[in-house]
């Protein structure tokens, strides 16, 4: 049971506890397949109106986590509670509130829209599926959504390929907003865009958050975006939570060595600052989720690792509080 303190005092919208997701790979009539341990025991909660970032590099399981939350995948173990309803193993009929109140914004502006459908049809699809209303009502809502995300509604009978990457991402956001959701799960929504388009879309998401009182579960690998855009952040590595904290605390004083390494490796466009940074890049490559290391998954690359890290999986400490980390030998809080 996670006992996160809710910074903004509002009720928890989403509660994830002990989530595990494994994928069998390699067919084998004789059971020779391996198992991808994509997510290995993740717990957190998200309040209404909050933006939680899930940060990590490839293979850390953040995308899998996002898909479990929206029940695009069925968890292997653990529970997911949305708006008080346990959706972990619920049958499709009971997922209707989830489908209405939570939606996903996908990473690929070119792949997340069906190239054969007109964009009005794409944005209106959730409305038709939920039997929102008459054709006219749906059309009016689509028009409204287009305006809300900054697109020209007169273009709504065009096809996706006629729009630029940033515009297509706006279409995807419009689709996600169709049924007035409370939660948007954004899976790397700006990674595939140019820098200038990224800024536009992030601004849009910030505006929408204010206008519509949205919560975001924001998956990204870009710490810069986290700092600007998010309230809290969860750092994942090979399926486990390394650190979870408010953004301010994480950037000011990371406790987990992996978080520190991530911060140190993120380039800053200021030559003097960046070259003055003390750099000790991590050695080696991350292990594969097919065979995660025993104990703390980060220990093979960690400069502070000791025997205990190999023997024992560190638990998230302290038990509650706004800044928790899973490390036997965390970094000390630097004196300012």
């Amino acid at each position, binding site marked *: 049971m996670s006992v996160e303190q809710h910074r903004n005092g509002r009720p928890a919208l989403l509660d994830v506890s002990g989530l595990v997701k494994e994928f069998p790979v390699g067919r084998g009539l004789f059971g020779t397949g391996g198992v991808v341990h994509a997510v290995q025991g993740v717990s957190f909660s998200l309040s209404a109106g909050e933006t939680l970032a899930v940060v990590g*590099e*490839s293979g850390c399981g953040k995308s899998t986590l996002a898909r479990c939350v929206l029940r695009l995948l069925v968890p292997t173990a653990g529970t997911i509670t949305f708006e008080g309803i346990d959706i972990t193993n619920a049958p499709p009929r009971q997922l209707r509130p989830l489908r209405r109140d939570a939606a996903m914004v996908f990473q690929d502006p070119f792949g997340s829209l069906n190239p054969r459908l007109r964009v009005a049809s794409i944005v209106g699809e959730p409305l038709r599926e939920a039997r929102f209303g008459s054709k006219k009502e749906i059309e009016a809502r689509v028009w409204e959504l287009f305006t809300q995300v900054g697109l020209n509604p007169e273009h709504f009978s065009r096809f996706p390929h006629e729009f*630029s990457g*940033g*515009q297509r991402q706006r279409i995807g956001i419009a689709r996600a907003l169709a049924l007035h959701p409370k939660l948007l799960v954004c899976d790397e929504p700006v990674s595939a865009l*140019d*820098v*200038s*388009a*990224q*800024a*536009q879309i*992030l*601004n849009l998401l*910030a505006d929408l958050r204010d206008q519509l009182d949205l919560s975001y579960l924001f998956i990204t*690998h870009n*710490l*810069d*975006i986290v*700092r*600007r*855009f998010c309230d809290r952040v969860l750092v994942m590595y090979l399926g486990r939570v390394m650190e979870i904290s408010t953004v301010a605390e994480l950037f000011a004083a990371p406790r987990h060595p992996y978080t520190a*390494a*991530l911060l*140190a*490796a*993120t*380039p*800053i*466009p*200021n*030559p*003097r600052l*960046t*070259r003055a940074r003390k*750099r000790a*890049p*991590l*050695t*080696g*490559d*991350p292990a*594969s989720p097919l065979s995660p290391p025993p104990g703390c998954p980060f220990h093979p690359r960690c400069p502070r690792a000791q025997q205990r890290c190999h023997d024992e999986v560190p638990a998230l400490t302290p038990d509650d509080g706004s800044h928790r980390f899973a490390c036997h030998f965390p970094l000390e809080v630097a004196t300012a």
Partner: protein
Amino acid sequence: MSPPLLAVRDLSVEIQSEDGVVHAVDHVSWSVNRGEVLGIVGESGSGKSVSCLSLVGLLPEKRTTVTGSAVFDGVDLLECSEQQLNSIRGRQIAMIFQDPLTSLHPLMSVGAQLLEAIKLHQKMAKGDARALAIEMLGRVGIPDPRERMKAYPHELSGGMRQRVMIAMALINDPAVLVADEATTALDVTTQAQILDLLRDLCARADSAIVLITHDLGVVAEVCDHVVVMYAGRVAERGTVEEVLERPSHPYTWGLLGSMPSVDAKAARARTIGGTPPSLLSPPAGCRFHPRCPHALDVCREEVPSLRPVPGGAGTHTIACHLDEARLREGADQASVLSTVQW
């Protein structure tokens, strides 16, 4: 001052596509010396990759028109025959690309590909070549190099594959290494390792690196000089300190302003409105003018040529019509960095 190792002058590339002529690169000039790292920065469609591919003749010949000059070690690459280019490619000018999975041959072992690279350009006994290959793998940071020689690309991680690419590129001791978005697909911690490796290896060999990227942070980390490209033209050029600490082109201001880490306190990013232009029918005059908040009438009509930044060293140039006063005003408004000095 010795002549630059590679000097590109007035390079223009036009590509015939199904829908018309794409004016991918328009009168681009830059140069790089031995031991230096040059960054070419731009978003997609800026022409940064196309310009470098055209240098070594890697664009489809029939549909491409390349004009200008690219003098490498006294020889104009654009005038070279295919044979001459073959001996230069891979030997004196090496390239590495973004996705090592598709750049490496999937059915040949890593060792075989390295040996092939050696054999193409150097005469060496087989035993010596193997030894060199193993040594190179070790130098790029691959553990157990002797064992890894037998590995196939799909068995290695993304970071490992990129290291193999670097080994292949550097094994013939090239004078210039062109890295086209070589770290874009890598995790940020792996990227840090690869960038350090590149810089280190090239410093030792005194070769030059041309680093093509869209990430100004990467440029700040590794580069000595930087060229900012927009829609096929050079917008700003100079040393990395000059361009990133005293950015002087409205596009560069926009790029830096869009980047979150620059000003952590701002809740909203400053954006460049609109979208990049089509290169099939680019705007007249300055190609940035439709999106430039400071655009003047002259910007719509006349192509700005590169001129030195007022008050700066001669090496810092911009292609912009704004006069000094308006530049100063614009820089203030953008207030991109607290260290902007005007």
